[in-house]
């Protein structure tokens, strides 16, 4: 019997084995054989979104550049020296890049050389076909048309390994926004890449679309972005800050739109394009003196200086410790505690009311006001926290929530801080008196200064400052008013004082024909550590202003490092910016020339010369 049906049995057994094997090949879900040689995926990138300024001027567009790509598994032996000569990369470097790409994947394309210009490409195209596994891929890179506002616009760069892991969208060699608007609005600007599937044959040649292109995913178009920046004003402000360190922030108070944001010295976005990118980036990074990659308008924390007196005046009025007629006598300063004298540039015996106190920037007046605010409460802690809450309602001591990733919080001291330092309530208004004139522990950034000025200009509220006006012609709504803790009626008297500052006070240089400018100067003592020795440097020059005082259209905050008097650099620069914005052309050419041509470089070099130096010349 066995002999008769031997073949039948064996056939049955074999068929069963085959069926099981086929089931494991074709039905098991984790079949490792599914890595598909036959289908090639090619990403289709939408053109990166354009960036315009508030008036529709094109700031950022795209230009074609070429990448040299390698698919390691397609390469055959070739002469490395010949190729390195051809593409202008050192042999060692070329070998390193090739081995990197092999380590990454032998099947996936890797970039050997990026940013090959149109001209080079024409030359390379004729030769590169000789090297199997290499090809040139057209790419679109950024074209920064205007060399201004680079600190706002930022730049793009090749996506990093960590970004590939965290974002779960990018592949090696793709571009991503690295800084500024390019980074913050990356998702809008990049769109969504599509995928095209191609059928390959066994020689890895593409022989046509796969599955009639049915599976292809179309790319989603990128969005264009319109900034709130006025590029003409930005350009003008940047020219005024030539050879100076500092920042300028200009805000439209009725919307919170940032018209200009200057940080000097700065970089140009174009430095991040093309083959010199790496070199340029290193240079910028290594410049530890000028710190061009550091945005002084957003990241630099300075003592606010005298503009703080305005806030103290407002708090004094709100807390009912002073009114517009309150007067204090200044004796060229005053003893705020035993053996503790705070100097003031006002003459001995000057009697100031609030307005005069503001326009003459009397230290004594605001020290006394500050003392009264704090002393109104039972404990200094309670007093200080009340004061600090008022200050914070102006957006100080915290990020403002604008649409860039960089920034600093600044610092507003609260009772906790002093309790830790001196012990529970073992301090008082006298101990913290420097806060009254914006010198003590308080730290602010230029954009915060501009923002609180905006709140004053609006008589009690501000809009969150922001950089983007429209995304694809759709307005970015930003209608939330942020109210300060100061009542509307308390502002008028203070604003009158600020108008006087420009009219007859410390900043007469900022006066503009036919426009009521309200402002406040600041001159800020500052120190540096040189070989563990605290040394005083020339004062910082600062100025906050808005105009026209009665119906403000523009708010300016200027900060010039080591510029000495607020009226020497900051006030003229702010004034010129206001004039430029409101009148479109500047009549005071002499002032403009002085600002544009003025340089503080010698001032900045002082501490690096290892010699004794004099300050405040």
């Amino acid at each position: 019997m066995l002999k008769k049906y031997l073949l039948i049995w064996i056939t049955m057994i074999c068929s069963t084995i085959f069926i099981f094997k086929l089931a494991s090949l074709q039905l098991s879900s984790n079949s490792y054989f599914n890595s598909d040689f036959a289908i090639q995926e090619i990403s289709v990138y939408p053109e990166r979104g354009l960036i315009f300024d508030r008036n529709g001027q094109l700031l950022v567009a795209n230009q074609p550049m070429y990448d040299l790509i390698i698919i390691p598994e397609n390469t055959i032996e070739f002469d490395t020296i010949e190729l390195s000569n051809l593409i202008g990369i050192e042999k060692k470097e070329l070998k390193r890049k090739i081995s990197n790409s092999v380590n990454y994947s032998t099947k996936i394309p890797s970039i050997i050389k990026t940013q090959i210009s149109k001209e080079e490409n024409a030359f390379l195209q004729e030769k590169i076909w000789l090297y199997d596994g290499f090809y040139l891929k057209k790419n679109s890179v950024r074209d920064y048309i205007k060399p201004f506002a680079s600190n706002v616009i930022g730049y793009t760069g090749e996506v990093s390994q960590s970004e590939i892991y965290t974002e779960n969208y990018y592949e090696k060699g793709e571009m991503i926004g690295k800084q500024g608007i390019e980074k913050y609005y990356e998702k809008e600007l990049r769109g969504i890449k599509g995928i095209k599937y191609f059928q390959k044959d066994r020689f890895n040649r593409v022989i046509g679309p796969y599955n009639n292109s049915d599976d292809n995913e179309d790319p989603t178009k990128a969005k264009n972005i319109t900034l709130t920046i006025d590029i003409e004003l930005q350009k003008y402000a940047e020219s005024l800050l030539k050879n100076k360190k500092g920042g300028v922030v200009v805000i439209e108070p009725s919307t919170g739109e940032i018209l200009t944001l200057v940080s000097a010295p700065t970089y140009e976005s174009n430095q991040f394009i093309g083959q010199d990118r790496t070199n340029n980036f290193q240079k910028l990074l290594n410049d530890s003196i000028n710190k061009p990659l550091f945005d002084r308008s957003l990241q630099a924390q300075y003592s606010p200086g005298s503009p703080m007196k305005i806030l103290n005046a407002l708090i004094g009025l709100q807390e009912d410790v002073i009114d517009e007629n309150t007067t204090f006598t200044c004796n060229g300063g005053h003893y705020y505690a035993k053996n503790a004298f705070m100097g003031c540039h006002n003459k001995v015996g000057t009697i100031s009311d609030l307005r005069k106190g503001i326009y003459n920037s009397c230290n004594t007046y605001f020290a006394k006001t500050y003392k009264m605010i704090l002393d109104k409460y039972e404990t200094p802690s309670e007093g200080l926290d009340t004061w600090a809450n008022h200050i914070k309602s102006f957006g100080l001591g915290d990020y403002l929530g604008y649409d860039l990733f960089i920034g600093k919080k600044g610092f507003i001291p609260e009772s906790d801080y002093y309790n830790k330092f001196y012990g529970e309530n073992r301090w008082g208004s006298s101990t913290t008196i420097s806060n009254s004139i914006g010198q003590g522990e308080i730290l602010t950034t230029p954009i915060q200064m501009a923002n609180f000025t905006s709140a004053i200009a609006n008589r009690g509220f501000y809009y969150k400052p922001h950089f983007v006006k429209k995304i694809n012609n759709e307005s970015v709504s930003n209608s939330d008013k942020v109210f300060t803790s100061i009542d509307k009626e308390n502002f008028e008297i203070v604003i009158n004082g600020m108008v006087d500052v420009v009219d007859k006070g410390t900043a007469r240089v900022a006066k503009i024909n036919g426009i009521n400018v309200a402002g406040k100067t600041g001159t800020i003592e500052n120190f540096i550590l040189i070989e563990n020795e605290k040394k005083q440097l020339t004062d910082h020059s600062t100025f906050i202003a808005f105009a026209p005082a009665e119906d403000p259209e523009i708010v300016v905050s200027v900060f010039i490092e080591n510029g000495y008097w607020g009226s020497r650099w900051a006030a003229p620069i702010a004034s010129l910016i206001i004039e430029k914005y409101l009148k479109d052309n500047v009549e005071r050419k002499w002032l403009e020339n002085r600002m544009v041509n003025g340089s503080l470089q010698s001032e900045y070099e002082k501490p690096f010369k290892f010699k004794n130096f004099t300050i405040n010349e």
Partner: protein
Amino acid sequence: MNSFNVLKYDLISLISYTLLVIFGIINIYSSSYNESFTSIFDNSTIVGKQIIFLIASLVTFIIIIFTKSKFFDRIAPILYFISIILLLSLFLFGVERGGAKSWYLIGPISFQPTEFAKLCTALFLAKFLSIIQTDLNKSRDVFIVGLIILTPIILITFQPDPGSALVFLAFIFPVLREGLDLRFFYFGLILISTLVLTLILDFTISVIILFILFVLLYLYNRQKKFKISVIKYFLSLVILIGVSFSTNYLFENVLEQRHRDRINLIIGKEVDNRGIGYNTNQSKIAISNGRLFGTGFLEGPQTKGHFVPRQHTDYIFSTIGEEWGFRGTLITILFFTLLITRISFRAEKQVNHFKRIYCHCFASLLFIHFFINIGMSIGLVPSIGIPLPFISYGGSSLLIFSVMFFIYLNFDSSRLKED
């Protein structure tokens, strides 16, 4: 003259045959498809040629169906003789393709006498075994049977086409059926095991294992009633050691590197998906790519990309796997199983010895092709280039298997007649 009555014939087998052939044509079309393809009857194209051979097969169908089965009995020796002559003269007039001189070129048609030899050997073996005097207990007759089978094997091995030669081992099944002592079969099994053992391990270790095995076997059998003499044990051991030694020698000295690679790959000594394992790996990718329902006709990416070498011939099963999925492969396997078991089963109902043995021969041949070809496509058997009957591209193969099938139909329809 027989009157033609459809119901006389094994219709289930006939339908299976028809479906497999049509399925074959469809898959050959897909495997060889490219855009410049024009008409399917254009004989310069692969499918065109296959269809011409199919038509030729249909002509033989009519001839064979109306031939008396006695006729095949008579001409079997002559056919066998002719086929041996054809195999011999290949060395003189043969055309070399893919490294083997196994083709005759007659005008535009190329013909593979190896295929013809399968048919002739089946007929002649059936003829010899059905002779009333033949007795497989006589060593003389066993020797003749061995000669009948080994002659084509040797001639084909020297073409060299060892894969096709291997197919002739299928005849061991009918010979066993006709009374060859099962011990030959077991001995054969031990022989093959020794062979594989030598390849996987090495010569010395295999000899030690064999020695221990035989001593144990001898000690075990000593207590039983019937005893085999020590000399026979010793002789068997010597033969097996000889096999082990010659395997080792053949493997190292006679086989070429490509053969060694193939064997190493299948016994798991090497894994190499880019070099020699490429064929099998690509075939497995294509098959697994098909999942349950397949990618659809002309839609298989592996097939379209021509990733699987010889996909329209030896690896046709990978096309089925990719484009028709598990559905397709399962049905193909079931049809083959049905066909082989049915033929083998119905052979047992034959009264006439010649016919019965022939049917067994045919079923065995079908089985060995089915086993090796599909086994190779899914990576269970070494890569051996033989076609999948009825399905693979190849005129000689299609024609000869069709003829063999029609002869089966003829024999089956007259199974109750003694003539």
